[in-house]
């Protein structure tokens, strides 16, 4: 236990909205190797299996996980379909640098730096840094979580109304 690089463990995602620059940090530890995490982020079939919310389907539209490559995927449920895309700048086993944008707000482009740190005991730490070009843009990303959450809530009410539990 004392051989790990840090005493802090992120068994749950930890988040920080940086007060000084328009960035969001997320840390999370996984029971897996850096190589496995790298594959989960670069193999399109694997990526589609975890990226979207459980009740939505992610379909990869374009995928070239190489330096200078690009990606696009569609996240959908019923009639609702949202598209996300970006460019892979650096694709390295310990580090992925990419842009990320929701096509609904195409001017809000985040620069994401993902690092996979081997903690030495079969665990790997993911650090995801999303840097936006303004505080307004960063806050729009933070709000997007809220909005989708609210929509999920409405959809749940729809389901409860449909099956008679309301």
């Amino acid at each position: 236990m004392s051989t790990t690089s840090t005493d802090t463990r992120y068994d749950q995602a930890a988040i920080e909205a940086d007060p000084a620059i328009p960035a969001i940090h997320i840390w999370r530890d996984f029971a897996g190797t850096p190589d496995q995490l790298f594959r989960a982020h670069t193999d399109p079939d694997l990526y589609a299996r975890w990226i979207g919310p459980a009740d939505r389907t992610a379909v990869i539209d374009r995928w070239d996980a190489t330096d200078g490559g690009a990606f696009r995927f569609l996240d959908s449920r019923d009639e609702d379909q949202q598209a996300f895309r970006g460019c892979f700048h650096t694709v390295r086993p310990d580090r992925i640098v990419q842009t990320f944008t929701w096509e609904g707000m195409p001017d809000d482009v985040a620069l994401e730096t993902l690092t996979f740190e081997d903690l030495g005991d079969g665990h790997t730490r993911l650090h995801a840094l999303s840097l936006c070009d303004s505080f307004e843009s960063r806050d729009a990303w933070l709000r997007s979580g809220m909005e989708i959450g609210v929509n999920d809530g409405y959809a749940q009410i729809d389901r409860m109304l449909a099956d008679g539990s309301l």
Partner: protein
Amino acid sequence: MADQLSRVFAALADPTRRDMVARLTDGDATVGELAEPYAVSVQAVSKHLKVLEEAGLVTRSREAQRRPVHLEAEVFDLMTKWIERYRQRAEERYQRLDALLAELDEEHTDTPMKGTAS
């Protein structure tokens, strides 16, 4: 509400204002009291206060002569709530990734079966 959140983040982007807010969590204070620890004029502190006020983070009593500055805790709660929602969504995503990693361990081959659901 959305605009307010942006103003809150922007207001807290400045280290002096963050410091002032931290100080106000201990209790109300006058402009003079807030200015004391800094090598800046009361006027400069007033400018910072105006930004905090516009973000809804602080209010100043109109009645009392000292016009103490008061921290509005609910605005903090709003910001915290939004960030927590974002965090929860990230955590849900990573729990799916946990499950995938566990599968990768079992498969230990390079031919993961493609999911055919929906």
